[in-house]
């Protein structure tokens, strides 16, 4: 579908929000709590802050919740009944305020959940999400989308991408999919035809720091490098980076029982935890943090492109911002690029 360009006046964004809400859509938008921004159900437009560069948490929860039931069971004298969760009644969600890097990340997670075996729980959730992306007019030193094939005005992954034309300007609305045009055609009064608008001059300037393909090439011979040990000494082995990341999708499966009934759930997990690969025998293929840090980087920049044809990083910088030990991924990647062959 070719890109359909519209203009929406700055005061109409709130109207758009309100009308979508009235149409009983759940709107997940960046909502502040304790000084951090996460995607939560927003009740009113005024809850959504302006002027921020990036949210603390990604929006992957709408399709890949942190804790998700897979099935319920109940035992009785007659036997056991097991019911899988119903895949066809997930709620419709509007994801509001997603950055282009996050929208690009959705394809990366979808690649994992559709690799040979199709995870219909994930696919079904995602099919009910409409993504309203917002371009970036500002960036900070943690952002590096341009180094991983993205850019601050990238339309990939969004259903509509809004770009603010100046600090106090109206918005260019690029309608990219059927889901997007379903919204614009519902509200013709709000979306005017746009003339020729060059959005590039309203986007943040993010210099390219490295090239994905060069990192991937370097990593082919980097498994034994000492860099993994040096860089990971300060890593504390928590899961913050994986959990805030828009493309990390590793999970655990746990049974939770309450007497004779219970459920099996899927929940987020991180390759950074020592428990992740621990065998019951006590043997751990990745017993030290350097091996786990290496796995993180290699999986995102070598294994995923090799097996799934997508990289596992969108350059959003969340992991580096969230890390309590300042394990900066951009720094590590530049270091790999600059390493002697």
């Amino acid at each position: 579908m070719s890109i359909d360009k519209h203009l929406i006046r700055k005061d109409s964004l709130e109207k758009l929000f309100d009308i979508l809400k009235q149409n009983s859509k759940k709107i997940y938008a960046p909502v502040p709590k304790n000084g951090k921004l996460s995607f939560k159900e927003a009740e009113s437009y005024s809850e959504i802050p302006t002027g921020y560069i990036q949210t603390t948490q990604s929006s992957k929860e709408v399709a890949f919740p942190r804790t998700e039931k897979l099935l319920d069971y109940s035992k009785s004298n007659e036997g056991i009944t097991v019911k899988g969760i119903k895949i066809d009644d997930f709620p419709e969600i509007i994801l509001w305020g997603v950055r282009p890097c996050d929208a690009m990340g959705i394809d990366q997670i979808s690649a994992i959940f559709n690799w040979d075996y199709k995870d219909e729980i994930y696919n079904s959730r995602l099919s009910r999400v409409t993504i309203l992306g917002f371009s970036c007019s500002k960036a900070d030193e943690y952002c590096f989308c341009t180094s991983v094939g993205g850019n601050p005005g990238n339309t990939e992954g969004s259903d509509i991408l809004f770009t603010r034309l100046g600090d106090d300007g109206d918005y260019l609305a690029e309608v990219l999919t059927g889901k997007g045009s379903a919204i614009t055609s519902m509200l013709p009064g709000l979306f005017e035809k746009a003339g020729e608008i060059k959005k590039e001059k309203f986007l943040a300037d993010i210099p390219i720091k490295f090239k994905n393909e060069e990192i991937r090439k370097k990593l082919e011979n980097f498994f034994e490098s000492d860099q993994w040990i040096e860089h990971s000494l300060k890593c504390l082995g928590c899961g913050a980076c994986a959990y805030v990341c828009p493309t990390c999708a590793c999970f655990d499966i746990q049974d939770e029982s309450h007497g004779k009934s219970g459920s099996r759930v899927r929940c987020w997990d991180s390759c950074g935890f020592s428990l992740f690969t621990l065998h019951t025998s006590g043997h751990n293929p990745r017993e030290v943090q350097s091996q786990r840090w290496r796995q993180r980087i290699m999986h995102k920049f070598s294994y995923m492109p090799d097996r799934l044809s997508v990289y596992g990083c969108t350059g959003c910088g969340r992991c580096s911002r969230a890390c309590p030990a300042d394990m900066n991924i951009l720094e590590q990647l530049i270091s790999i690029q600059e390493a002697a062959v």
Partner: protein
Amino acid sequence: MTDNLYMPYLMKIEKVTYEAPGVKTFMLKFVNEEDQHNFTFKAGQFGEYSVYGVGESTFCIASSPTREGYIECTFRQTGKVTNALSGCEEGSIIGFRGPYGNTFPIDEWKGKNLLFIAGGIALPPMRCVIWNALDLRDNFKDVTIIYGARSVKDLVYKHELQDWQGRKDVKLITTVDPGGESPDWKGEIGFVPTIVEKIAPSSVNTIAIVCGPPVMIKYTFPVLAKLGFTDENIFTTLENRMKCGFGKCGRCNIGKYYVCKDGPVFTAAQLNELPDEY
């Protein structure tokens, strides 16, 4: 089966066999006949066996695909789920997801000699392919099985070992570690790699399938190399911590290879490519 990849089949435990201290075999039948009818698998594949409310555990399917109507698994009581499974009696219902993973390319072995080498609790992953071969005996030339365990009581599938001993078309050599023999033990005494070297099976037109604890593999591969086996003709199966079993949860990979998708069956040549991460 529904669209829910995580929904297990319901399985009834038809028979429980005590194999060795802490080791049991379950014979499982599908509760739902239609599931039984539609289910197929190949030797080498594994499944996720679960006790509802406790969790899932990964074992190979230890029975041969030539035997229809049931599947079998053998496991050692080690952790939370295997302890719970061990407490299940005949008639209990458990869950099973599968079959997952790749298979032994048994079709490509037609006309060849087969040499099976296993140690301890690693005989179960090979039992499927041993019976698969024996059920299609005419497809293969000589079949040799070398199996050892720490002691006599640790040998699994004791009845089947007798069965194979009695067969004229199978050469079975059993061994126990020095010190593990009983007074009436008639088999070999020595570590498996030592016995392989002693028996010195021919590598000509032979496929070797080896499975055992890492230390056994480490010492057996060089023996096979000395006997003239090439890495492409040595097969093994690997284990790793698993949860989903189909390449999504991200935890069983060795470098870019997933044990649940690219394995669990690997050739020695493929093992050489794997990074030192297992």
